């Protein structure tokens, strides 16, 4: 079976393995054929988010993808390539900081019911693999866009009964945040955890509107409203 890997140039490797995950194959190549092949890995079981790459143009976890003959493997897009399949995720990670994606606890922790728990259960499955930033067309052209995983994280906390400062979180995502997304849904399609940041962003938009914010793009089309972010109705 042959796979090719985008390094400085495209390099082809022949491996004799059946029904193997891409990560197993990459390890086999590194330890038996070419020690210079560079990729990141950790848990091998889809929870650490280290080994996300693109195969045939699609974001996958190397540990969760069964290799097919002829697969073409590339690094993630929209993050600086350090070497071969390893990209620098610092910038994407930093959006969690910019988006203030943490809990501002109440003084007394309210009790959470099974229904409350389900509201953000799937959002708390996120493994920060960065696939969503790689596929996001908005992040590709606006590197200040807070981006999918950090907005999902904001929704996770905003929707949590234990959150004490929901308003300031909503305020913080008005610029380069919820209104910049084109709702193209690409992030949902590649998420290995089945999270839809698009849906979360839509929910954050509703919350924003309820808090008195509006879509700045829409306001502009409506005529007569400026960019000052003031409510448009």
């Amino acid at each position, binding site marked *: 079976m042959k796979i090719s890997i985008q390094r400085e140039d495209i390099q082809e490797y022949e491996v004799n393995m059946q029904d193997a995950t891409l990560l197993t194959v990459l390890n086999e190549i590194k330890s038996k054929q070419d020690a210079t092949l560079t990729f990141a890995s*950790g848990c091998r079981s889809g929870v650490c988010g280290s080994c996300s790459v693109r195969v045939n143009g699609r974001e996958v976890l190397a540990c969760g993808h069964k290799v097919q003959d002829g697969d073409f493997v590339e690094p993630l897009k929209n993050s600086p390539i350090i070497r071969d399949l390893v990209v620098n*995720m610092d910038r994407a990670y930093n959006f969690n900081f910019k988006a203030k994606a943490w809990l501002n606890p109440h003084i007394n922790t309210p009790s*959470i019911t099974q229904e409350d*728990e389900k509201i953000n259960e799937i959002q708390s499955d996120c493994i920060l693999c960065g696939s969503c930033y790689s596929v996001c067309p908005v992040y590709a052209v606006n590197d200040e866009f807070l981006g999918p995983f950090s907005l999902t994280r904001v929704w996770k906390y905003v929707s949590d009964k234990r959150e004490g400062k929901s308003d300031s979180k909503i305020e913080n995502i008005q610029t380069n945040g919820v209104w910049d997304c084109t709702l193209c849904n690409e992030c949902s399609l590649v998420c290995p955890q089945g999270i839809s940041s698009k849906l979360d962003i839509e929910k954050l938009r509703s919350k924003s509107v309820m808090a008195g914010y509006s879509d700045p793009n829409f306001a502009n089309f409506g005529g007569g409203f400026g960019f000052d972010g003031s409510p448009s109705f």
Partner: protein
Amino acid sequence: MKSDVLIIGAGGAGLVAALHAYESGAKVRVITKEYPTRSQTCMAQGGINAALGNVGEDSVEAHVQNTLKSAKSIANEEAVRLLCESASEAVKWLDSIGVCFSRTKDAKIAQRTLGGASAPRACYAQDYTGLKILHTLYDRCLAYGIEILNEKYLLDFITNKDSVCGATVLDIRSGEVESYESSSVVIATGGYARIYDKYSTNSTASTGDGISAAIRAGARVSDMEFIQFHPTALKGSSILISESARGAGGYLLNSKGERFTNELAPRDEVSRAIHNEMLKGEDIFIDIRHLGEKFIDEELPQERKLAKLYENVDPVYDLVPIKPSAHYTMGGIEVDDKSCTKVRGLYAVGECANHRVHGANRLGGNSLLELVVFGKQAGVNAAKYVKDMNASMHSHAEYGNEKSMCSRSGEWERVSSSTRDEELVPMLQRGNVNPEIDFYKIREELGNIFYKDVGISRDKKILESVLVKVKNYIAQLPKMGVSDKSKIYNTNLIEFLEFKNMLELSRLILKGAISREESRGAHFRADFPNEDENFASHTIVDKDGVVA
């Protein structure tokens, strides 16, 4: 800039220590060889123990007794009491910072039964407990603005006489060696079960780097021979199937479809039972079909996904083939009741440390608890150490002279080690000559030998022959090395450095395993199958050999 508290490792233990050191007023810096959230902690599935009694009757005393029983008389009862008594507060704290625990119908934190527990005691978040705790801790660190530096590999601790004053690291991205000065250092680098290579459930990062470096810096380690084998790892890939699968009523079956053991006994007993069946030529399976699709999707979604991916079986309809695999290392760096090592200012916490709460066999659900309880202890005490040191310097009116005692470069006493930066550069510059011996081959061989001979069942003669082999590998190290000569993100080099650390720890495991002529918990000697009171103590080792 110099930090007060430097934390090596950004898993659960490291981040808890960071948060508490910060809250104690210290200037904190965290360094990780990966990114935070990628550590071993994210793989913990089963839960975190606390005798809340939310689901069935439970008590702190029962938790203490279960833990002590499983530890086989070599846990420190005081430490175990502290662990169990702090558990309720630990879970409450996690809840208060936003961990998404599963809940009961009456809006309490849900709990389930793990092996060796007399009650449903493990608080969980589906089978993503570690992941959700780790990510919440990370978010908390962001809220405090704690500095976290990614992709820097620990080389050595910098010491001055018997005190620590920082660490040297290899920046993986640039290939440059950097020094970070700090008044105190917390080691939170995880365990060493990757020695078992493809027979380990662990992340590829669990290579014992911090333990090795601590020994080189003069710290002591203990109980290295106690290595827990998890009964249910997937047969082909050693990927973990959580104990909660058995806790929920899963059966273990042999090829004949017969049950052969109490599935809810502690891990050492279940692993040995499986091992014995396998010696008879049986294949072993876990059967959770009777739990039903709804339950499996609700409580064990990850298990279903992994079994399908790695074994091509769907646990809703099929038996899942399993084998025991190296999962957790009870041994580690010796610490006192403040989490401090023998080196002043150097603290250790998490799997790399030995707080003497697990003894000869850890209970499921106690390791997440350990990192919260002792992470706090380490963080608070590291911060206090710095405060006291600064105060005493002021009072001696020598502050001006002494404040940078560690940075007077001439007096830095670099720890003796084979991974010093002076030796890294030549390793990369050895022309295009490929190393004579391929360390990847040896790494795999070491894993195979350890699984077979230093695994679930051990024997003096065989252990001694493995020790000869390991010494031989160590002697051959100069002939090994890296064939990748790049400075930029050289994982070949990192893996070689990790391998060297594992090789060193292998030697210590063997010394402990050979000298412990008895069977206790996870350490089973076929030639001494019974517990022997004379060995009801700890094996303590420093860089010169067995101390006690």
